[in-house]
């Protein structure tokens, strides 16, 4: 393998991993705070992508908008969607016994995933099933190495979001409360943290992040009503591998899987999609609580 090829494969992997980490962050945040595995996470990603597509498509002939701006418009809306979703569907579960909560969360979020997928599917009748935005900025070329501008912008945004999230978690009251709840729910409640509100906020942020990732998908590749569940599964791998609730773990997990897919894609593409699941199982067997889990 030549050096430039190696560099290119690594760059591809890291850029890919960054977008993985973004969606997985949301999932991790939600699990950390409310103890709920959100099987509908990928659906929010899909709907977020569809929203960007629909806005772009509707505006296209009137007013050409950079789809990245549309992503920024859509994200706050999905924060609200997340709030409502949490209030209506997740809040009632948080008081249940652990194994009951796990089971009912599976039911509720899986059911919600089915509803969202099927409604999106139904709404796509009469228009195209696969949705993708036609937007391209020429790549940066350094020697033989290509840096896809779209992906660089995304990666930059991911970094900014991660730093913002870090600052939010470290230096704001709500952020500290989120961490407190993640670490010890009852303890946080005892010292006067409004856990109900924190849950809702965490869910809102998580959903907004999923929608942003969906926007990136629709620019870079495509979304269709049936992509939700498989993507959720891949993000769950990242989250669990890193350790549920660990943000560093998620970032690392995303990049590891991105790199793994990138390297295998170069040599043995047939195995590239196996990386996430193989790593998940292997990591858990060695460290039952993930890389950074406590």
């Amino acid at each position, binding site marked *: 393998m030549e050096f430039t*090829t190696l560099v*290119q*494969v690594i760059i*591809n992997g890291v850029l*890919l991993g960054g977008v993985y980490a973004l969606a997985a962050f949301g999932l991790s945040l939600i699990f950390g705070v409310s103890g709920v595995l959100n099987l509908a996470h990928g659906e929010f990603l899909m709907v977020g992508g569809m929203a960007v597509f629909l806005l772009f498509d509707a505006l296209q002939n009137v007013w050409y908008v950079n789809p990245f701006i549309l992503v920024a418009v859509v994200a706050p809306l999905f924060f609200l969607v997340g709030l409502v979703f949490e209030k209506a569907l997740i809040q009632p579960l948080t008081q249940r016994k652990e194994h009951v909560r796990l089971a009912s969360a599976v039911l509720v979020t899986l059911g919600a995933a089915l509803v969202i997928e099927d409604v999106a*599917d139904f709404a796509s*009748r009469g228009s*195209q*099933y*696969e*949705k*993708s*935005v*036609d937007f*391209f900025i020429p*790549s940066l*070329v350094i020697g033989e190495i*290509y840096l*896809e*501008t*779209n*992906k660089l912008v995304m990666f930059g945004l991911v970094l900014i979001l991660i730093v913002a999230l870090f600052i939010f978690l470290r230096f704001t009251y709500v952020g500290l409360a989120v961490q407190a709840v993640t670490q010890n729910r009852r303890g946080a409640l005892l010292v006067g943290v409004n856990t109900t509100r924190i849950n809702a906020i965490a869910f809102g942020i998580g959903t907004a992040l999923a929608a942003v990732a969906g926007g990136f*998908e629709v620019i*870079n*590749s*495509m979304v*269709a009503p*049936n*992509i939700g569940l*498989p993507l959720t599964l891949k993000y769950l791998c990242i989250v669990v591998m890193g350790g549920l609730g660990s943000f560093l773990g998620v970032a690392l997990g995303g990049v590891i899987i991105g790199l793994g*897919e*990138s*390297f*295998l*894609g*170069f*040599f043995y*593409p*047939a*195995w*590239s*999609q*196996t990386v996430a699941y193989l790593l998940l199982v292997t990591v858990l067997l060695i460290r039952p609580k993930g890389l950074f889990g406590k």
Partner: protein
Amino acid sequence: MSTRNQNDTHQFGEIITRRKFITLASAAAAGMAVIPLGGSAMAAKTEIVIGATLSQSGRFQGIIRPFGKLLQVWADGINAKGGIYLHKINKTLPIRLVIYDDQSSPPTALKFYERLAAVDKVDFFMGPFTSFITNAALQAAVKHKRPMFMVEANDSAMFEKPNRWRATGLSPAKTEYTRVVQLLAKKGGVKTFALLSRDSLHENQAMEGFGEMVKKAGMEVVYQKIAPKDTRDFSSIILAMKQSKPDVVFIEWIPPPGNIGFLKQARGLGLNPKDVVVGHAPVPVIKALGRSMENVLSALYFFEGDSPHHREFFAMCKKAGFEPWQYSEAGIRYVTFKRIEEALVTAGSLEPEEVRRAMWQSNFSLYNGDIRIKTDKKGYGTLHPWPSQIKNGKPVSLWPLSKGVEIFEHKNGQW
């Protein structure tokens, strides 16, 4: 444990069980009432009943969806003329379609084909989409001895064993891109090929066939790989392709999600071959890539022309609410319609055995003699797609070959 309610059970057991039994029996009866148990006795035929399933939901719906309407347009067209004349019973009978949604799933298709045969008493079947679903459906055809005009199943797995109840209009999957390779060979200027397919029965065979034909035409395959079906990131595959320095890149991926990601990333990563062939380039792909699709080669199941068949086909698509190139598989449906019409006229009756024989003997030409639809010994047909090239956001037919070579322009790495 049951001991807890033992007393209750002893006291009320008998009554309750009986009452529950009655409830159950009436529920079952209600259920039976909903499922029509038997068709009316078929003393004298008054119509030609054709059964099929279409994937109106599930993963194939994006390709198949408008064909329910197309089928209806065809049946309406025939019925407007009174129907099809069957000389052996000396009657002109109208067509009635019975169509179910197989949800893109083989077990569901199996269930519905059984129902079509036993309950709806169809005279023959039109096959579903893909080999896996067709194979499940075929069970019902063999069991009930009804011929199946297979529509979209041409993978070798379906034709290993002889089976007299099925035949398709399509040529084997491996020959799918014969005309595209012919065109590239004739135009010249390209030598090396990189091929990629989505890991599935049909796409792999189509790609393999493409590779074999390329080699036979004296050109070279420098990269040939299969990508997992869920692949969304192609950057490494593209990088490996780039290093093999191909003149032509070919991707075979149905339904379109993979094509879109692949093309977008190929553009971003500087894969600039002389020509790009996208096996299937329906609307979502063209729209997602915009100007970059200019001069991309693809294949359509019809070609531009002005024969009576062309006019009929275009009019049917228009009535069904789409332009032919938007759902080019409509061309396969059209050939199936023509095969059915011809078989019925030849058979002159609805006797399954006679319709079956006529289906196997089908031999007629379409589009002013441009192609001859025939069934070979295994049950394959002769239809395979014609080359096209995207120009101004719409595929332009590159057929007949001599004219096609003139219109055809290399993409020359211009995204």
